[in-house]
């Protein structure tokens, strides 16, 4: 393992501190509790927090700022933050209009955010939650945890954040965020595994000449292993899977070509070229496209494609200004 770090146990705090130091006027950092929040606090609006395990940078702290999150709370690498950390974030941002929690659909996050919300209620903080589950690789079954939340979370932050800036109520912000979730699907592919700083070696292997379709952002096994494909073939496989799950035909969509951390931008641009061609063929209009590392999996190589079907409301919210380290409009 070769990583730029001091101690494996200190990567989360050190990274968040480094992020804050790059945006000293916009962000503050609460050490040990691993919370990043907007310096301009308790703005008179519904507050928005999100969080989860570290290792997905810039998610979530990179989306703290005007037009998106008010605070982000981080757990250890790939591990949910505890209720005391989440509670700190809730108290930091709450101004009496309620706090919406954007939670990715993992057992640990659901339990920890749920308990934090129960405790915050005792302090008079009203919360509501939206659960992101966009990974089309996983069946959305009733029983058990079901579909994972992955890169589409970035769009949910954007939509909910813009709605909150408009002065909407907690219920209205939640409803817009839910609408975004319903219209988002993501499908990923991994080429090589990631290495957790505290583990020091890959937790699984992907054969040199193979790729893993549908792998999760923590290296959860995908839907199938396949021999290495061309960019065109990868784009087709991922888009087919997305479109088999949700009908985007004839629609306008926001597109996110997301890198998993170890894939060069050059390859992401190539993937985007193929995706854009296919969208055109399938009469889907790419209304706004993002290409880059938005929701990573430490140093995993690979990418994901996210589509969010848009209506007039979602378009307006997507176009609204935002100013965060990882996304500015």
């Amino acid at each position, binding site marked *: 393992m070769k990583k730029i770090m001091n101690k494996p*146990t200190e990567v989360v705090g050190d990274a968040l501190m480094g992020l804050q130091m790059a945006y000293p006027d916009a962000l503050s950092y609460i050490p040990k509790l691993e919370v990043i929040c907007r310096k301009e606090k308790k703005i008179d609006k519904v507050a928005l927090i999100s969080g989860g*395990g570290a290792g997905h940078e810039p998610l979530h702290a990179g989306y703290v700022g005007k037009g998106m999150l008010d605070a982000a709370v981080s*757990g*250890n*690498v*790939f*591990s*949910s*933050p*505890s*209720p*005391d*950390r989440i509670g700190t974030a809730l108290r930091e941002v709450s101004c009496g209009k309620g706090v919406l929690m954007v939670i990715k659909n*993992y*057992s*640990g996050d659901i*339990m*920890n955010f749920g*308990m934090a919300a129960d405790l915050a209620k005792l302090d008079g903080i009203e919360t509501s939650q939206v659960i992101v589950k966009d990974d089309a690789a*996983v069946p959305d079954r009733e*029983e*058990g*945890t079901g579909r*994972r939340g992955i890169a589409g979370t970035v769009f949910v932050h954007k939509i909910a954040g813009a709605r909150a800036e408009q002065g909407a109520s907690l219920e209205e912000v939640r409803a817009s965020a839910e609408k975004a979730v319903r219209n988002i699907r993501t499908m990923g592919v991994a080429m090589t595994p990631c290495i*957790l700083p*505290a*583990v020091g070696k890959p*937790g*699984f292997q992907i054969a040199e000449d193979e790729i893993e379709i549908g792998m*999760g952002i*923590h*290296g*959860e*096994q995908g*839907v199938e292993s396949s021999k290495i494909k061309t960019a065109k073939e990868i784009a087709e496989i991922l888009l087919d899977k997305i479109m088999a799950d949700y009908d985007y035909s004839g629609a306008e969509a926001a597109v996110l070509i997301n890198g998993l951390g170890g894939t060069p931008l050059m390859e992401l641009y190539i993937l985007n070229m193929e995706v854009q061609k296919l969208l055109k063929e399938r009469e889907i209009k790419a209304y706004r496209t993002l290409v880059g590392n938005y929701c990573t999996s430490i140093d995993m190589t690979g990418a994901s494609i996210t589509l969010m079907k848009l209506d007039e409301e979602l378009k307006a919210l997507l176009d609204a200004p935002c100013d965060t380290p990882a996304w500015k409009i």
Partner: protein
Amino acid sequence: MDFSLRSRDYVEYIKRAYELIHSRGDYITELDSATGDGDHWTNLNMGFESLVQQAERLEEMELSEQFREIGRIMMSVIGGSSGILYGSAYIAASKTLEGKEKIGEETLYEVLLSMRDAIISRGQAKEGDKTMIDSLAPAVKKYKECLDRQEDAELLCEKVKKAAEEGAENTKKMEAVRGRASYQADRGLGHLDPGAVTMSYQLVTLMDFAAEKSREK
């Protein structure tokens, strides 16, 4: 003979559990990598390490307060699913220990029962879902059987320990319903659940320690 564990003893147990967990890092991480993301041991180990570092402070507390504090530390240091589940378990158990100075045979059963119930309620999982519950629940059940039969403490400890180990071993045959293993096509079938294994480490250490204490008397 009955055993009796005081605050100081429970901290001694924590130290021994830490030693066992600490020594099995590679094995647990390997198990976890097969079905999860390989961080279970790192986080659990960090939690126990933190408890051991705070041993002196914990030893001075009354049992109920001590359990609440252990729960708080586990919740915040371990994080993830394990942190909140162990945290909820210890906080629930602390309520059964109110006003008690020592943990005897009957009380230890109440402690483990309350832990089992808290984990089931917080995790919304049941026996057979391939989780830590699959080691704890059979151990609790066996404990009750032994109590009802008025089994000798040392034998009771031995049987509960076996039930915990067998329970963890049985997760090999189970399909995961929750957590990351549930995303796999085979839902982890054929693999041990690392959370059940580390739960069994704790129960084995605890029952061995209680047996040792019952012999001391």
